[in-house]
């Protein structure tokens, strides 16, 4: 029992890996069985994650170690940081699966879609539970591969172009990351993720090499995290079906990159070393530039999903910013944004998908008066958008508040400026949408109530209310904020 | 005798040059065949009469027939003259320089390697008494390093299979019509002595120059002669017996090598007392397989048949 309990991260990983295998094996036939397996796997995973959550909260660290190559192990571990990511993924996977089942009803190649979808989540689980950089890299590349068929799912020329761009960026990033990892391996041997990092004593002897490696690692991860010059793939990947976009933006790909940056800074280099090497400032500046740049670009987009995509570019960098400020409060802000942004962004994409699927709306100027026809959906969109802007007491506000506090504490007052500018820009590109949706008359005469089908609306409502709840009940003991506070406390205590 | 050696070597080089640079393909082929004969002569000079026999029979004789036969089958448009002289282009010049450099290095290397006596060769000569035959080359081929010979039979067999895969269908059984009555009767006259010589060569391999390869090649030559004079023709069907004979050498060799393990304790070793009879058995089965394979490589057919009278 204890062994099986200790191996929980493995079971969580396998729950979606096996689901993927079974779905592939089933093929296109038997859709009901496939749906059943899919949902069952998602539920099982949720239960497993719940058990682990209890364990980690009680101070237990799950760890599984499998020898892979001489001297190199595959390490899966569940510490507080990985639980943050795992819980988010497990929860949103269930929601997205339900959403996708409804979204893709009667479209071709569903077995392929759901197979890779499960694989994608398995990879995300792997990234979350990776106990060293090597393991992290394995799942990081697996994620790239599993996402590609989802991006090109529609099979159009446009989708293929997006897929090609996606691959060029992510595989290139992967190669850079691999170089960094190999270099680090050569320098310091196998390194497990340990709070506070393990490289401090080497920092004095090889500062230059370590800086180079840091740059390589962050560049490699920055591609997926869509840091400013490396974000090009993200907006074009919008051609993918809405659930995929939701997955890309809220849970899997972008977050994997951001999560990786967190791991490198906290658990490989350690905050002290990162600061000592002077890389914290560089990272903070890169993140700030991305925040402003993404928001600016978002303003000029007319396609709803493209605007949301640039919004993601901007918002994900909050996480990197929080980490780079290297101070407990800012870290809380950054890490909690991992969850908050995920919930809010998935709500927004679900809504975009509802619009597209129910009324064929893709462009923002078609949204006029949609609030009357789809009140629930639009309400959820509003929740998400306002949260993104950072209206108190919504989730986005919490993140920004802590980031701001951290910036003050760190003495980096210019960051406050960045946050303020970002908020203003967010408002500029979100509020007109809300205005159109609620206050403009619909272009067509028909303004009868035509809400999205239950399969789409249900997950949207769930995600929207979750996004609302994490903001409203941020003070409760089970909120992400409380969890992150616990986590940051552990990170900064030694 | 140095003079003879020098002349021979010079002729070899001239013919090789001719073979490579001749404008007409036929001349190149003829140069090659003559080169083979002179090579055989040189090998006699170099104390290698077995190899001279083999080269004359297989390298120059059978290969010559095959080359000329192929040349005959090339369509007129397919044979273009080539002028591969070193001054005809960049590639030629570079290749010539490279060849020259290689030749110099090889000659120097061959010249300088004289010091150490060869351990393997000395061992072979020292253990000749235990090998069951008096002829050292045969001892190496069929006993000391019999495994090589076995695998070589595989090469021969697979070359034959490959050649049969690409063969063109036979238009008509007797594609070489006898020109006169003279040649078939000549062939009939020559057949018994040639067969005798072939079998003798196989048998003699145990104590004097000769052996399965030389004998097999002579036997194949007899077959080629019969085919050329129209007494024997290729057939498009092969029989079980023919395939059995083709594989006979390899099968007998392998079986002997494996089945005798309990007696000898080693693979491909022969028990004392049975060495000589076993080796003769193996030699003859090898010779039959070699002769048939070479003959079929010549006819390019999977089977053989006697011509209709």
């Amino acid at each position, binding site marked *: 029992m204890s062994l099986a309990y200790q191996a929980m991260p493995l079971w969580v990983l396998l729950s979606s890996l096996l689901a993927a295998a079974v779905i592939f094996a089933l093929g296109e036939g038997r859709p009901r069985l496939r749906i059943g397996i899919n949902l069952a796997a998602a539920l099982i995973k949720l239960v497993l994650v719940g058990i682990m959550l209890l364990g980690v909260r009680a101070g237990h660290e799950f760890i599984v170690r499998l020898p892979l190559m001489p001297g190199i192990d595959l390490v899966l571990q569940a510490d507080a940081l990985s639980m943050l990511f795992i819980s988010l993924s497990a929860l949103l996977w269930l929601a997205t699966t339900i959403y996708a089942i409804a979204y893709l009803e009667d479209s071709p190649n569903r077995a392929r879609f759901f197979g890779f979808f499960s694989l994608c989540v398995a990879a995300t689980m792997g990234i979350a539970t990776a106990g060293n950089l090597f393991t992290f890299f*394995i799942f990081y*590349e697996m994620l790239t591969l599993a996402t590609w068929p989802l991006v090109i799912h529609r099979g159009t020329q446009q989708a293929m172009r997006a897929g090609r761009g996606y691959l060029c960026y992510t595989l290139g990033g992967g190669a850079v990351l691999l170089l960094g990892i190999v270099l680090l391996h050569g320098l310091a041997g196998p390194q497990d993720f340990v709070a506070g990092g393990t490289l401090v004593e080497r920092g004095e002897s090889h500062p230059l090499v370590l800086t180079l490696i840091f740059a390589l690692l962050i560049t490699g991860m920055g591609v997926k995290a869509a840091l400013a010059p490396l974000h090009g793939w993200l907006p074009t990947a919008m051609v993918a079906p809405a659930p995929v976009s939701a997955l890309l933006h809220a849970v899997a790909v972008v977050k994997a990159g951001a999560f990786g940056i967190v791991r490198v800074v906290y658990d490989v280099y350690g905050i002290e070393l990162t600061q000592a090497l002077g890389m914290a400032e560089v990272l903070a500046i890169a993140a700030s530039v991305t925040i402003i740049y993404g928001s600016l670009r978002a303003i000029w987009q007319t396609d709803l999903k493209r605007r949301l995509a640039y919004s993601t570019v901007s918002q994900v960098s909050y996480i990197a910013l929080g980490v780079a400020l290297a101070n407990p409060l800012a870290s809380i802000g950054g890490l909690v944004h991992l969850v908050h942004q995920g919930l809010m962004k998935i709500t927004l994409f679900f809504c975009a998908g509802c619009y597209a699927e129910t009324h064929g709306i893709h462009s923002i100027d078609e949204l006029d008066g949609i609030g009357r026809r789809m009140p629930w959906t639009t309400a959820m969109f509003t929740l998400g958008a306002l949260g993104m802007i950072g209206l108190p007491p919504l989730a986005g506000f919490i993140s920004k508040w802590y980031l701001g506090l951290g910036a003050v504490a760190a003495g980096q007052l210019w960051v406050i400026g960045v946050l303020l500018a970002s908020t203003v820009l967010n408002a500029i590109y979100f509020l007109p949408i809300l205005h159109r949706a609620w206050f403009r008359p619909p272009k067509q005469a028909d303004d009868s109530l035509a809400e999205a089908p239950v399969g789409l609306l249900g997950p949207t409502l769930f995600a929207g209310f979750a996004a609302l709840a994490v903001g409203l009940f941020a003070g409760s003991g089970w909120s992400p904020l409380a969890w992150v506070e616990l986590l940051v406390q552990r990170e900064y205590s030694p | 005798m140095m003079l003879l050696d020098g002349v021979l070597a010079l002729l070899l080089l001239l013919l090789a040059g001719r073979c490579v640079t001749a404008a007409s393909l036929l001349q190149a082929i003829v140069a090659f065949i003559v080169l083979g004969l002179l090579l055989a002569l040189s090998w006699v000079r170099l104390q290698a009469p077995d190899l001279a026999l083999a080269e004359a029979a297989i390298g120059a004789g059978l290969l010559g027939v095959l080359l000329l036969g192929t040349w005959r089958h090339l369509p007129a448009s397919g044979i273009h003259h080539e002028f591969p002289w070193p001054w005809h282009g960049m590639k030629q010049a570079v290749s010539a320089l490279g060849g020259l450099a290689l030749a110099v290095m090889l000659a120097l290397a061959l010249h*300088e390697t004289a010091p150490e006596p060869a351990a393997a060769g000395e061992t072979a000569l020292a*253990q000749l008494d235990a090998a069951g035959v008096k002829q050292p080359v045969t001892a190496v081929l069929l006993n000391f390093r019999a495994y090589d010979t076995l*695998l070589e039979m595989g090469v021969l067999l697979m070359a034959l299979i490959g050649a049969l895969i690409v063969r063109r269908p036979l238009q008509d059984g007797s594609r070489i019509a006898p020109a006169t009555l003279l040649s078939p009767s000549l062939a009939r006259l020559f057949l018994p002595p040639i067969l005798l010589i072939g079998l003798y060569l196989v048998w003699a391999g145990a104590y004097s120059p000769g052996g399965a390869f030389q004998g097999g090649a002579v036997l194949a030559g007899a077959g080629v002669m019969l085919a050329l004079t129209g007494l024997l023709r290729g057939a498009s069907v092969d029989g079980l017996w023919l395939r059995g004979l083709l594989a006979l050498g390899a099968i007998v060799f392998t079986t002997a090598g494996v089945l005798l393990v309990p007696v000898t304790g080693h693979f491909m070793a022969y028990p004392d007392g049975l060495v000589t009879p076993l080796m003769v058995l193996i030699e003859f089965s090898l010779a039959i397989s070699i002769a048939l394979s070479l003959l079929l490589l010549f006819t390019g057919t999977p089977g053989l048949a006697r011509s209709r009278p």
Partner: protein
Amino acid sequence: MTEALPVLLVFVPFLAGLGQFVLGRAVPWSQQFVSGFNLLLVLLLLRAVAGGEPVIADLGGWGEPLAIHLQADGLATLMLLLTAVLAVAISLYAIPAFGGHARSAWQFWTLWPLLLGSLNALFLSRDLFNIYVTLELVTLAAIPLVLLAGPRKTVDAALRYLLFALLGSLIYLAGVALLYAQAGTLDLALLPAATPTGSLAGPLAAALIITGILIKGAILPFHIWLPAAHGGAPAAVSAILSALVVKAAIYLLLRLWTGALEPLVSIAAGQLLGLLGASAVLFGSWQAFRQSRLKLVVAYSTVAQLGYMLLFFPMAVTAAWQGAVYHGLAHGVAKAALFLAAGNLLYYLGQDRLEALRGIDRPLAVSLLAFGLAGVSIMGLPPSGGFTAKWLLLTASLQTGQWWWTAALVAGGLLAAGYIFRVLRLAFLQSAEPAERRDGPVPGRLMAWTATALALLAIGLGLISAPLLDLLGDIPGGGS
């Protein structure tokens, strides 16, 4: 008892092939027994070798300087294992693939066990001249197999293959002659001690031997015979050729470089080989990217992938040794899967122009999955055998400070992704016309699933490398 294993590994397939030849008609199931038995023998050998001591058979019992020995050490056993596993899969695949054509089926089932025995013989040989014979044996078994795709289409490729192979083996033989002149023995184990250094003949012999092997192994300047031959052969044969036959030449290079030729080779020669390998990686991948026929893509990919193995020579440390050999294994399995999958596509389409692949994912999902999975290993992405090998090679390049090879490794992986995804992209592309316009026969389960099984194995090699690398051990002689 264990001494019998290497001998049986050669003789059993050999006799099976001969028996098949004499019988005169195809008996596919007998070959399944042979490949199964072969695998069993290799597994027994694996157990025997795992202790660290090689298994040696003295053929004829004449002892060391003269007789031919068969020797199975870690390296040879790994190659035998690769061969045996692929033999099982390819033999199964060939049952449906060669059905129907009585004569060519007979020829295939004759030549294939002979080739299997020849490969085993090559991997086991401990004798320079015997290696020459086995090299010829492998070549002359392989070329007729190429012709089985139909002489009209493949005769040019087969002829070119034959010419290069013959030249290569004769150059090799010239090197062997010079080496024997100095050392007086052909036994690989005795050669390093017996070879005098400091003369011209020694390095010249080594250079000739290496050049000959490079020609046989289709390394960059000598690669020109490979694509047409591997691209034109029947799929099962292409798999054998790319996964095993050319690999055998590189295997020899690894074996001789670290053994018999060790006193004769120099650092400069190692760098030169590495340079050839790196150029092969880049050039081959680029060519693969530019091809318009599926099997040529895969064939050029072989040109590229063989180059990785040559990166061992400049670095010559244990990590490079393990990486190169492991790359051999991983590429063998993945490339076989790739060719079998490509064969399935070809079987359905009746042609292999890339343009024809549009929207083929629906009828041939399993084969395409196999193609993609095998592609992961070819690209060197984790988790896969290809990645493990790449990791080891990268580690070696940084360990030895020869960081310039990392560029080739990384760029090669990216280019590989380029040509693999180019194929997948077309397959996933939805064509305007309905997909049912083709009515080719859908490859049977046996064909689809053998390819997939191999592809999964290629992935799995990334997870089970530890015992295999243990078996291989450190670089012989402790490295330079």
